[in-house]
């Protein structure tokens, strides 16, 4: 049996305990003095014009997804950078192909109108 993960067993309850303790303690110890002005969304005093629960334009999601896609590439670039020497030209070639595919995705998104707001 591999015991190298045993510390996780101890960390796990600890990780669970900390937020619970914090939440409970603030509730118990913190002084409470509620008033109408304190429970408005912006304590600076500006009254919100409409309800905060409304729909966002779908384009936000599009941008978010595009961002995620192109952001995640970093996950692949870091390990390559760490092992750059060992991987050599082969690694370089493979990463170039990877980036080329990403560029292809960008071209696709562009041509399909994914980057236009209207």
């Amino acid at each position, binding site marked *: 049996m591999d015991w190298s*993960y045993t510390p996780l067993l101890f960390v796990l309850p600890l990780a669970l305990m900390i937020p619970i303790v914090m939440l409970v303690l603030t509730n118990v110890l913190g002084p409470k003095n509620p008033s109408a002005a304190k429970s408005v969304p912006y304590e600076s005093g500006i009254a919100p014009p409409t309800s905060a629960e409304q729909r966002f334009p779908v384009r936000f999601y599009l941008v978010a997804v595009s961002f995620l896609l192109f952001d995640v590439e970093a996950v692949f670039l870091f390990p390559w950078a760490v092992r750059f020497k060992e*991987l050599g030209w*082969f690694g370089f070639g493979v990463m170039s192909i990877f980036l080329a*595919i990403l560029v*292809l995705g960008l*071209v*696709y998104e562009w041509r*399909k109108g994914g980057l236009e707001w209207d």
Partner: protein
Amino acid sequence: MLAIPEIGWSDLTPLLPFLILCVGGLVLVLIDALIRGRAGFPWAPVTALLPAAALVAYAARWGDAVGETVFGTMFIEDSFGSTVGVLICIATLLAVFLSGSYLDKVGRTRGEYYALIAFSASGLVLFASTTELLSLFLGLELLSIPVYVLSGYLRKNPLSLEAGMKYFLLGAFSSAVFLFGGALIYVTTGTTDLVEGLRLGAGSPLAQLGFLILLSGLLFKAATVPFHMWTPDVYQGAPTAVTAFMATAVKAAAFGALARVVAAGSPLWDNIPLTQVLWWVAVLTMTVGNLAALTQTNVKRMLAYSSIAHAGYLLIGLVVFSQTGDHDALSGMLYYLLAYTVMNIGAFGVVIYWANHEREHLEIPQYAGLGWRTPALGLAMSVFMISLAGIPPTAGFFGKYYIFRSAIEHGFHSLIIIAVLNSALSVYYYLRVMVALYMRKPVATLELGRSTVVGAVVAVCAVATFWIGFAPDAFSFVPGVPSIVEWVQGAAIAAR
């Protein structure tokens, strides 16, 4: 610290079929982006070039497929994987031609559809040629995500949307389950190579648990009871051409991977529990599938339940293999997959052929009298139904014979009796289609569509259904070309 395996450009050549499909998919995306959705591009024929080229690649590398691994132990090139890959490519090729006509009929021809098919096919061939947890997962995701999208492709059709959403949620969940099982195995054994890992994990309860969880993730993809709930809704709702693709190509890959995983998992126990688990899954799968199919009136839903039932028959091969290690059981399974591919694509082809631009005719009673109105199509549909029912002289019969054969040889009598009774039961609902085609008066004049390409696909499938059933050792007279039987036997022996 893990050692970096020796990898280089030469590791890519065994993955040629995968690369063809994957790069081809990228090219399709690019074409679609560049022509900006202008009509008139011959999507289906161009897409069909990809599985065709992959088939050529398989044929060219046939002699080299001797079980060597590439990228460390990530992938393996052996004739089992190549055989499953060939099945996948055949199914994809036929499904692409069906898609062309189908999308024209529903008026939703888009380049993305074909790119997704190509990506999914590339995932399928990867899935069938690996025994490594990470690459297995990679293949699983690569094949699944495009199929989720394809299921919901007709986004104005509520059934299709439901299919896409349902398949996506459950599929993602099953992927997670699969990953969890894999993680448990890795935790216990410290390697992601299944064969090596499961040998190390022999007797460890955690590895056994992980293996069963991993197995259930695969059984989900293969549409077996109790992981079958999604099948009828997804098969019914998805575009018919996608259903044909899912029922054949995805099934072939799922069973290919299952066979490898079961083979790798056999050292975990003294074999018995694994066989018993599979035994029950097989029995439940065929019985539930057949019983539920009895009352269906929608042809796609009926074929969905029938595909569950057929998964049960296919599992018989794995049950026998898991206990005895007899490769003959696996060759029966491969043979059955081939037979199942041609007859199922053919049946869906007929459904697509009859669809017109307004609507598809999916209720079996609507087929009343169609056997007389379109004799060739009616005959072809009857051939597929007879074959699905397992009546000679068709591929379905010989496939069943082949699977039952090894089970009887190893004394799985109760399993075979259950399978035989099930298959008698299934005759009832397959014959219902024939009853409608030939024995009922047409209720109203039905507007039938037509399509030359689909007609050709159906004809090819019908001829193949007969040929594979009548002369399973076809082509053996050509020197150097193995008969189908020898071919699947060779592939099964190579299974790792």
